[in-house]
């Protein structure tokens, strides 16, 4: 039998540590026997679970199993996440006031939504890279206008191929004195996916199903649990299932919060054109964590190729042309220097950023 790699061993340990509901003795033995702590925390951090692992160990009284310096290191991850998220939520409160004054409703998405709705019991457990909002398409420009008038700066991006014209999305970089050295990023979306063929045909259907949660004295609207599960699955698929562990844990904790009506969920996934992403996501979770599924849960035709071919189409010729090697530097210059933005931009800036980074990486390693 093949011995798992050091990476796989840590990953297997992290799965269990992240959901320490019923600690098994062998987990504790594995922690005690663990020696390569640098690798352990690096993987924890890369996978977005370092604060969660620290919290679980502390909650269950297992911190003493760690050497003192490792306890300290785990605490630093936790406190750093508390601090970073404190900055985010202070600004979120301000954005809420700004948008509320203009009567622009919004839904919180992704990690932020999971924190405010209590899926994570402590705001220090879920690292945030940004805060994602869903607003109605008609509200995108008014929201952008009022936010920029209040000190937010839109991160300008160059032209994007027409393949993305159905995905209006804005990428705002916060620019205030307090965060000059710690930039905070906020994304305004009008759809759940930059790809028009995935997600609900009409995002309006999300709003009546949404729920509200009080967090730090503010009431926030978030997607319903089933919609969040579907959206998270879609998000994983967009990232080609190269998932960080925390993204899968997000879904696991959503499922712990509310067992969905599976039939209804799969029906909705069909409508959103994301049946395979959902089933594959569930498969990934059940492969690593305990998750009770009904006996008649669909058997998943698990072919990675099939899923990838469903999810990732060949890039359009425009896309390829735009990102030819000799364009990369100019794009980066545009990204870093362009100051004007007030035009309706129709693309996914996140996708662009991803593409640029990937191409830059190739360029550097050429």
């Amino acid at each position, binding site marked *: 039998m093949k011995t798992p790699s050091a990476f796989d061993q840590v990953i297997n340990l992290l799965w269990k540590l992240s959901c320490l509901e019923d600690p098994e003795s062998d987990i504790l033995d594995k922690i005690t026997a663990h020696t390569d702590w640098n690798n352990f925390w690096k993987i924890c951090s890369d996978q977005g679970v370092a604060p969660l692992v620290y919290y679980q160990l502390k909650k269950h009284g297992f911190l003493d199993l760690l050497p003192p310096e490792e306890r300290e290191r785990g605490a630093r991850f936790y*406190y*750093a996440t*508390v*601090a*970073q*998220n*404190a*900055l985010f939520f*202070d600004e979120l409160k301000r954005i809420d006031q700004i948008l509320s004054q203009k009567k622009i409703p919004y839904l919180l998405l992704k990690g932020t939504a999971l924190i405010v709705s209590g899926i994570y019991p*402590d*705001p*220090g457990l879920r690292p945030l890279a940004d805060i994602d909002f869903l607003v109605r398409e008609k509200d995108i420009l008014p929201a952008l206008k009022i936010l920029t008038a209040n000190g937010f700066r839109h991160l300008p991006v160059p032209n994007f191929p027409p393949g993305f014209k159905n995905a209006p999305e804005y990428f705002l970089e916060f620019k205030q*004195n*307090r*965060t*000059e*050295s*710690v930039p905070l990023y906020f994304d305004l979306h009008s759809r759940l996916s930059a790809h028009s063929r995935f997600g609900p045909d009409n995002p309006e259907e999300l709003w009546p199903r949404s729920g509200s949660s009080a967090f730090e004295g503010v009431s926030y609207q978030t997607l319903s649990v089933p919609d969040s599960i579907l959206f998270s699955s879609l998000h994983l698929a967009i990232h080609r299932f190269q998932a960080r562990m925390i993204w899968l844990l997000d879904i696991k904790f959503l499922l712990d919060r509310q067992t969905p009506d599976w039939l209804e969920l799969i029906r909705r996934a069909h409508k959103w054109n994301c049946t395979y992403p959902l089933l594959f996501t569930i498969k990934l979770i059940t492969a690593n964590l305990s998750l009770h599924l009904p006996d008649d849960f669909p058997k998943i035709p698990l072919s990675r190729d099939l899923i990838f071919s469903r999810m990732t189409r060949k890039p359009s010729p425009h896309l390829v042309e735009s990102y030819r090697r000799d364009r990369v530097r100019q794009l980066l210059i545009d990204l870093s220097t362009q100051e004007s933005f007030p035009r309706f931009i129709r693309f996914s800036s996140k996708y662009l950023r991803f593409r640029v980074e990937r191409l830059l990486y190739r360029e550097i390693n050429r």
Partner: protein
Amino acid sequence: MKKTGSDLSSIPEISPGIAFRIIEGEAVLVNPENKMIYVLNHTGAFAWRKIDGKSNIQKIAQALSLEYQAEISKAENDLLELFEGLATRDLISWQKSNS
């Protein structure tokens, strides 16, 4: 470490831009300007929560003494040291007393 010249009549106020959260009785403070994070223990967090831009150190020390049943002189000395440390790290500034 520089001294900020505080005394018991000094009124601390939280510096602009400082973000903080109280988590399980501890205070996590972050100064985005220098990207530094500080954690205060329970008594430090208690004192931090009492900072309202109106109460001077003496008044906060009285509250601390009552809460933790500590001698008032010890509470005052500890708080002078704590607030001095917070001020030198730009987490608080001193407000001019009206009296």
